[in-house]
C-alpha cells in the first residue's frame, strides 16, 4: 500500500513541478516586458520626450516622380489582416477596413487620392485630370485623363463614373453607408466621354472631398439587371488599378497579382498576399519566422520589438502618425443628473489621469487628445492644452457644483442623490479594461463612485442608441479632416443620432452649420478651431488618447518612406539578390 501511495505522491509532485515550470515560462514574457518598461521610463525621464526615431531609409536610386518607381521588379509582399472581409464588393455596406486594404487603390482606383505628403486634404489626380468647383452653380466638373483603361483594356469613361454613382444610389443596392457621403449630390450628368458634372443640393465641403475620392467601377463588368445580383457579388473585384484580383482562399488569404497592362506608374512587387490571422501573437510569430513580411503590432508588441536589437537587424520598426487611428473618449450622458452640469464634466476630466494612460498603457508613444479632430491635422487648434490631472481642482469643481458629502459615507451627494454612476464600455478590450481600473481608483479619491460596466458590443451600441447609459467609454476612427456635425450638433440628439451624450450648444451649432458651407479651407479651419475651443471648455466628452501607427516590415524591402499620411507600399521594391518569391 505504501509503495503505491508513494507512486501517486510522486506523480502529484511531478504534476505540481510541471505546473510551476509552465508558470515560470509564462512569467518570463511578462518580466521581459517589465524590464523594458523600466528602461524606457528611465530614458523618458532623461530625454524628456520620445518621438520614435525613424529608420534611415536611403533609397539607392533617386525617385523619379511621375515616371516610374525605382528599383528591381519582382518578389511578393505578404501582409496580414486580423479579420477576413465578408465581401470585396467596393460599395457594399458590409465593406470593412480589411476589404479596403485589399482593393482600394490596388484594384479599384478613385478619381483623386490624398497627397500623402500633406497633412490636410489635398487631392492629387489618379483617374481624373482636373476638378473644378463652381460655388454659384453648385457644380463640380471632373475631367478624366485621356489614356486610361481597366485591366482588361476597356477604356475608363464618364459612363463608368455615372454607372458607379447610380448603382450606389439604387435603394435596392445595399450601400447605405456610402450613399450617405453622396447624399448631397442631386445628380451626375455626362458632359462628354471624359467629362462628368456632379450637381449638388447645397454647398458642403465634405462633398467636394467625397466626389474627389470617388471609386470608379467598370460598368461592363459590374452591370446587373437585378440589384440582388449586385449585392451578392462579393468576390472578384475588378477595376483599373495596378493590381488584379487573383484568388481568395476562404479562411486563408487573398492574392493579387500585378497588372502588367496598367495604364499608369507600375509598381515593382509582383504579388500582394493578404493572409488572415486572427491571433495577434501568432501573427507576430509568423513575422519572426518570415512567413509574412509586415504587420501592425499592438503598443506592447511594438515596444518590446523596437528595443530588440536582434529583431531590428531583420525588420524595420516604424512608428508614425496618421489620421485613421482616431481617438478614445468617455462620453457623459447629459440627460443624467450628474453630467448636465459643465463643472461636473470638467471635474471628471481633471480626475482622469491621462498622462498615466499615455505613459503606462501606451508605453509613452501615445498623445492626449483635446478635441474631435486629428491632432496633427489642420482642423485641430494646436494652442489648446489638455486639462491637467488635478484631483484638488476636481474636488473644488464638484464642491462648486453642489456635490458634497453630506451624509459622511465618503460619496458625494446632492439633494439626496449619491454620485454613483456606471461607466459602460465594450467588453473584451484589454486597453479599456486597464484604463477603467485606473479611473475607478482616481474617482474614488474625489468621492465619486464609478462602477465599471463592461458590455458586449451589440448591447453597448443598443444602449448608446437608446441613451440608456450614464457614461460610456469608446472610440471614433479618424480621417484627415472630419465633420463633427453628426457627433455634436443638437439636431443629432433625436432619433438615434450619433450625438449620444446630448450636447446642445447654440454657438457650436451655428459654427458647425457655417463650416459645412465654407469651401475655403483657411476660413473653415478658423471656424473649426473655435469649435475645438468650445468643446474643450464644455467637455461633452473627456477626450482620452490617440496613438501612432506601428508597422513592422521585413528589411528586404527598399524605398520605404514614411509620408505625412503614412506609408505606401506601391513605391517599395526588393533588390534582385534579396528576392524571396518567384
Amino acid at each position, binding site marked *: 500500500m505504501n509503495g503505491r501511495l508513494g507512486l501517486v505522491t510522486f506523480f502529484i509532485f511531478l504534476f505540481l513541478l510541471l505546473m510551476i515550470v*509552465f508558470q515560470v515560462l509564462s512569467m518570463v514574457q511578462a518580466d521581459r516586458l517589465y524590464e523594458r518598461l523600466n528602461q524606457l521610463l528611465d530614458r523618458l525621464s532623461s530625454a524628456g520626450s520620445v518621438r520614435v526615431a525613424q529608420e534611415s531609409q536611403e533609397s539607392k536610386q533617386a525617385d523619379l516622380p511621375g515616371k516610374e518607381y525605382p528599383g528591381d521588379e519582382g518578389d511578393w509582399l505578404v501582409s496580414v489582416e486580423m479579420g477576413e472581409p465578408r465581401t470585396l464588393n467596393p460599395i457594399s455596406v458590409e465593406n470593412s477596413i480589411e476589404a479596403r486594404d485589399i482593393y482600394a487603390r490596388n484594384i479599384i482606383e478613385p478619381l483623386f487620392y490624398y497627397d500623402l505628403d500633406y497633412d490636410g486634404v489635398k487631392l492629387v489626380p489618379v483617374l481624373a485630370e482636373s476638378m473644378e468647383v463652381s460655388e454659384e452653380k453648385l457644380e463640380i466638373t471632373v475631367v478624366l485623363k485621356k489614356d486610361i483603361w481597366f485591366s482588361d483594356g476597356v477604356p475608363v469613361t464618364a459612363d463608368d463614373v455615372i454607372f458607379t454613382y447610380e448603382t450606389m444610389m439604387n435603394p435596392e443596392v445595399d450601400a447605405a453607408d456610402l450613399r450617405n457621403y453622396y447624399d448631397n449630390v442631386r445628380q451626375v450628368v455626362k458632359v462628354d466621354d471624359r467629362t462628368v458634372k456632379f450637381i449638388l443640393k447645397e454647398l458642403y465641403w465634405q462633398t467636394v472631398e467625397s466626389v474627389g475620392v470617388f471609386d470608379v467601377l467598370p460598368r461592363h463588368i459590374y452591370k446587373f439587371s437585378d440589384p440582388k445580383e449586385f449585392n451578392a457579388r462579393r468576390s472578384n473585384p475588378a477595376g483599373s488599378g495596378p493590381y488584379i484580383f487573383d484568388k481568395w482562399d476562404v479562411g486563408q488569404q487573398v492574392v493579387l497579382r500585378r497588372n502588367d497592362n496598367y495604364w499608369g506608374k507600375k509598381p515593382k512587387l509582383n504579388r500582394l498576399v493578404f493572409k488572415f490571422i486572427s491571433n495577434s501573437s501568432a501573427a507576430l510569430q509568423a513575422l519572426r519566422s518570415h512567413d509574412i513580411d509586415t504587420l501592425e503590432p499592438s503598443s506592447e508588441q511594438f515596444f518590446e520589438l523596437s528595443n530588440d536589437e536582434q529583431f531590428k537587424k531583420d525588420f524595420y520598426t516604424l512608428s508614425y502618425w496618421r489620421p485613421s487611428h482616431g481617438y478614445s473618449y468617455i462620453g457623459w450622458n447629459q440627460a443624467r443628473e450628474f453630467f448636465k452640469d459643465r463643472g461636473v464634466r470638467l471635474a471628471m476630466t481633471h480626475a482622469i489621469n491621462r498622462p498615466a494612460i499615455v505613459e503606462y498603457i501606451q508605453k509613452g508613444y501615445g498623445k492626449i487628445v483635446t478635441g474631435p479632430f486629428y491632432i496633427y491635422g489642420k482642423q485641430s487648434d494646436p494652442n489648446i492644452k489638455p486639462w491637467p490631472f488635478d484631483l484638488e481642482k476636481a474636488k473644488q469643481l464638484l464642491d462648486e457644483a453642489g456635490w458634497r458629502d453630506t451624509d459622511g459615507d465618503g460619496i458625494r451627494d446632492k439633494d439626496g442623490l449619491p454620485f454613483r454612476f456606471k461607466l459602460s464600455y465594450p467588453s473584451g478590450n484589454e486597453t479599456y479594461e486597464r484604463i477603467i481600473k485606473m479611473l475607478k481608483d482616481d474617482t474614488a479619491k474625489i468621492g465619486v463612485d464609478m462602477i465599471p460596466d463592461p458590455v458586449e458590443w*451589440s448591447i453597448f451600441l443598443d444602449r448608446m442608441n437608446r441613451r440608456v447609459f450614464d457614461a460610456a467609454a469608446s472610440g471614433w476612427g479618424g480621417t484627415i479632416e472630419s465633420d463633427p456635425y453628426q457627433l455634436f450638433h443638437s439636431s443629432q440628439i433625436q432619433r438615434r443620432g450619433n450625438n449620444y451624450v446630448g450636447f446642445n450648444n447654440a454657438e457650436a451649432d451655428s459654427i458647425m452649420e457655417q463650416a459645412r458651407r465654407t469651401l475655403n479651407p483657411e476660413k473653415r479651419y478658423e471656424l473649426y478651431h473655435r469649435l475645438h475651443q468650445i468643446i474643450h471648455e464644455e467637455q461633452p466628452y473627456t477626450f482620452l488618447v490617440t496613438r501612432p501607427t506601428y508597422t513592422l516590415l521585413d528589411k528586404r524591402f527598399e524605398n520605404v518612406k514614411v509620408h505625412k499620411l503614412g506609408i505606401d507600399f506601391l513605391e517599395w521594391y526588393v533588390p534582385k539578390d534579396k528576392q524571396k518569391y518567384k
Partner: protein
Amino acid sequence: MIPTLLGITIVVFAISRMAPGDPVSLAMGPGGMMDAQRAADVRATRMRLYGLDKPVHVQYATWLWRVVRLDFGDSIKHHREVIDLIKERLPITLTLNIISFVIIYAVSIPMGILSAVGRKKFLDRASSVMLLMLWSLPSMWVGQMLIGYLCGPPINWFPPAGLSSNYAEQLAFFPWLADRLWHLVLPIVCLTYAGFAYLTKQVRAGMLDNLRADYVRTARAKGLSNWAVIFRHAFRNSIIPVITIMATLLPAMFGGSVIIERIFSVSGMGLLAFEAVTTRDYNVVMGVATIAGFLNLVGLLLADIAYAIVDPRISFESAE
C-alpha cells in the same frame, strides 16, 4: 425526432431574437457618421429588406417554411446562402476533427485496455495521472504557449497560423500534403490531448466491470488465453459506452471549436457560428443550430443501431 428538432429550433430562434441588438444596427455601427434622419430611414429600409419588421412568430413561420424546403436563407452579413457558407467551412472543420477523433480513439482504447488489465500497476497509475494532468490544462493557454515557444525563432518547428504556406500552390501533391499536415499538427495537438483522459477512463471502467464478470471467469476456466479473453469477450462488451460517446461527438465535429480555430487562425464552423452570434446574423445562427441539432439526433440514432451490432442482447426485431 421531428418534434425534438422543432423544439430545438424554437428555443434557438427565441433566444437569438431576445438577445439585445439586431443585425441592422450592428452593421450600421456607430461609425456610419450618418445624419440622424437619414440613419432612421436606412434602418427602416434594411429591417424591411430582411423581413425583421414583422412580428417574431411570423418570422419564425416564414423561416420554418423555407427550411422545410431545405432553404436556410441568406446570411445578412455575407449576402450569400447560409448553406454555401457552411459548405465552404465544413471541410476544414471536418479534417481537423476527424483526424483528432481517430487519434483520440487510437490512443485511448489500447491505453484503457492496458490500464484495466494492469490495474493499479505502474502503467495504470502513471497513465491516469498523466492524462488527468493533460485534461486539466486549458487548451486556450496550451495553444498560446505552443505558438509562443514552438513557432518562430529560435525553434521554428511549426507554422503559427493558417493551413498552408505561401508557396503551397507551387507544390506537387505530396509536398503539398506534407505542408498541409505540418500546419495541422499544433491545432490537432490542442484538440486531442484533453480527450485522452476521458475516453481512456471510460474504456478502463468498462473493461474492469467486464473483467470481473462471471462470463470472463468462465472463459478463463475454459482455458482460453488471456488476450483472447480480453479481446473477444471483455472488450466487445465494454465498447458499448464508448459508442455512446462517439454519437455525442458527431455534432461537435460539425460545430468546430471556436477557441482552437481562433488561436490558430483556422476559419471553420466554430468561427462562423461565433461570428454569426456576435453579429446577430440570425439565418446563419439558425442554420448552424438546426443542422447541429439534426446531426445530434442522427448521432443518437446511429448509436442505437451500433448497439444492436455490437451487443448481441439488443435487437430491433420485436420480441416474440
